[in-house]
């Protein structure tokens, strides 16, 4: 496709993306930030992990997104006895009294699977996490002696941060496969809280989600559009230096005068953001520039996705890892506040 063809394609898709965003915003109050980030993830072809308290709207948000994207949608609940094969197939005795094997949630729709939602992912065992890692990384799985591909697949997972019993921490390799990790909280605004409490429209989730036009985005075309977005949005030398400094700061925050209380910053970081992580950050930032109507990146594009794409990829020394939720926010804020651009 020619350059002008790309330009018109991008121009056509931009209103669609914004339409999906505004459609979801109408159903979910106080979630403009997460909705924007999920929109970025869709067009960056990245998977998303949601984390938050119970009942703050994580599942509703993902159901809304799935409806907006269209395509086949599957969902599975993470439990302690869930095994990898439960995702791939299930066996039962059919009406003829014979054993039968049917495809599981991942294989059921074949290549048409568009959204796979793994609820309470941290309740599943590490074996299941391994399978999920393969599905996320390669958009494929091996079953029944052949490989199955899911070119349109987008994985969403959520975990609640309240309950820790009978849960399994997701390994860092699996976490690194998620483009973003979004923290979902109940809205702070009093008016929005009152609306959630007293407007019956928000009490019936199924009915609420019906207001979203299904398949706002032709999901089959997203996989082809995503690389065009990445190629068309440019990064100047100054911008590249800024992004590089941000990456370096996740590895050596003390070099950028980032301080957290009286912590010894040289002892805090076990591993900074991975190369895959920062490339995902730039993918999301390029989509943000495109949504903003630009064909070049500015620092705000990166700053807008820095926390969401990087925080879960920075690992602390074990003695500090237990205080992760307390420290990671300060670290990310400190890096954004201390790295100048240009």
């Amino acid at each position, binding site marked *: 496709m020619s350059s002008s063809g790309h330009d018109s394609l991008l121009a056509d898709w931009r209103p669609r993306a914004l339409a999906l965003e505004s459609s979801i915003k109408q159903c979910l109050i106080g979630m403009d930030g997460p909705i924007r980030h999920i929109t970025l993830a869709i067009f960056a072809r990245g998977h998303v992990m949601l984390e938050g308290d119970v009942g703050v709207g994580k599942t509703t948000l993902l159901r809304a997104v799935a409806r907006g994207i269209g395509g086949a949608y599957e969902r599975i609940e993470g439990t302690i006895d869930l095994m990898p094969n439960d995702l791939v197939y299930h066996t039962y005795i059919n009406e003829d009294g014979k054993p039968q094997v049917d495809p599981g949630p991942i294989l059921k729709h074949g290549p048409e699977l568009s959204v796979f939602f793994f609820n309470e992912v941290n309740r599943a065992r590490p074996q299941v996490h391994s399978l999920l890692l393969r599905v996320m990384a390669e958009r494929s799985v091996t079953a029944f002696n052949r490989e199955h591909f899911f070119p349109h697949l987008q994985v969403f997972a959520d975990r609640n941060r309240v309950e820790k019993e009978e849960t399994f921490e997701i390994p860092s390799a699996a976490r690194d496969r998620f483009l973003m990790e979004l923290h979902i909280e109940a809205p702070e605004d009093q008016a929005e809280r009152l609306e959630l409490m007293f407007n019956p429209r928000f009490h019936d989730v199924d009915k609420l989600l019906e207001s979203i036009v299904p398949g706002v985005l032709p999901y089959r075309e997203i996989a082809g559009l995503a690389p065009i977005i990445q190629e068309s949005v*440019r990064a100047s030398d100054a911008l590249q230096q800024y992004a590089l400094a941000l990456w370096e700061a996740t590895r050596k925050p003390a070099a950028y005068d980032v301080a957290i209380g009286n912590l010894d910053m040289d002892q805090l970081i076990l591993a900074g953001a991975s190369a895959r992580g920062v490339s995902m950050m730039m993918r999301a930032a390029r989509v943000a520039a495109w949504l903003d109507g630009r064909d*070049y990146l*500015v620092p705000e594009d990166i700053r807008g996705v820095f926390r969401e794409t990087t925080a879960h990829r920075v690992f602390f020394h074990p003695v500090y890892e237990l205080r992760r939720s307390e420290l990671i926010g300060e670290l990310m804020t400190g890096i954004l*506040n201390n790295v100048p651009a240009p």
Partner: protein
Amino acid sequence: MALMRSIALMLCLAAGALRAETAAPHLELQASRDFGYTLGSLIEHHLRLWLPDGAELVTPLLPSPGAVNDWLDLRTLRWEQESAHVVRIDVTYQVFKGIRDPETAVIPPLAIAYRVGGTNAEIHTPEWSFGLIPLIPPATPDDKVMLRGDAHERQFPAQSAFYRFVAFLSAAALGVLALASRFGLIPGLGRRRPFADACRRIARLRSASPGVRLDAGLRAVHEALAKTHGKPVFPAMLDAFFEARPVFAPLRAEFEAFFDASQRHFFEPGAEETDVSVHCQALEGFCRRCARLERSA
């Protein structure tokens, strides 16, 4: 008549003086007191020796410090020529006589040698009696004698030294603070003027090419903004910046234009930058206005 009497008196006085200078040498002894001395006391004698013409003290033969007898030591002897005929000699003795009852002790005569007409001669101080009292009260049995404790250490007046030390420390601390504030190491201390510094940096760039000048000028203003705000300022943070530093609020439109220009220059690849010189001048003017507001803050 009166004049004759005066002349006669003067002649008599002159004759008297002449007699004194030609008379035999004589000694005069002065002591502060002759009572109340104890074991270990120092006794000072001040001697004045009148010598006749041609006589002189033979200093090598003067008594040397040392034991005078079994209870008296001569500690020091110093002499000084007061005039042509008078020598002053200061002698210090120390008493080591242990007694149980008060008694009178006698310092024996001290021989002072002098030479006259090539011959050595001596003149002796008079015997000197003084009252010596015991350290132990009289009629006190030995088993009742209490030994005194050691003398306490001498207290030196250290107050002034302490004050001097405190003054030195204060001066040193003030010096360090002054240096730290001069180099901007203490946040909030000393008036930093980042925009004034940026203006100077931009002014130094006048001879550079317009492209280099614009690039370095924009960076200088970005740095000034970051120093003023305490962290890098991005366009989306302008509201927070003006809220924290309302003195710059009148220049809001110029700040927005600055960020637009900066974004175009640094991040928009291939953006055509026309009239770069005009941009440089505008940037310099903007920086000067910021520096003025900074000064007024």
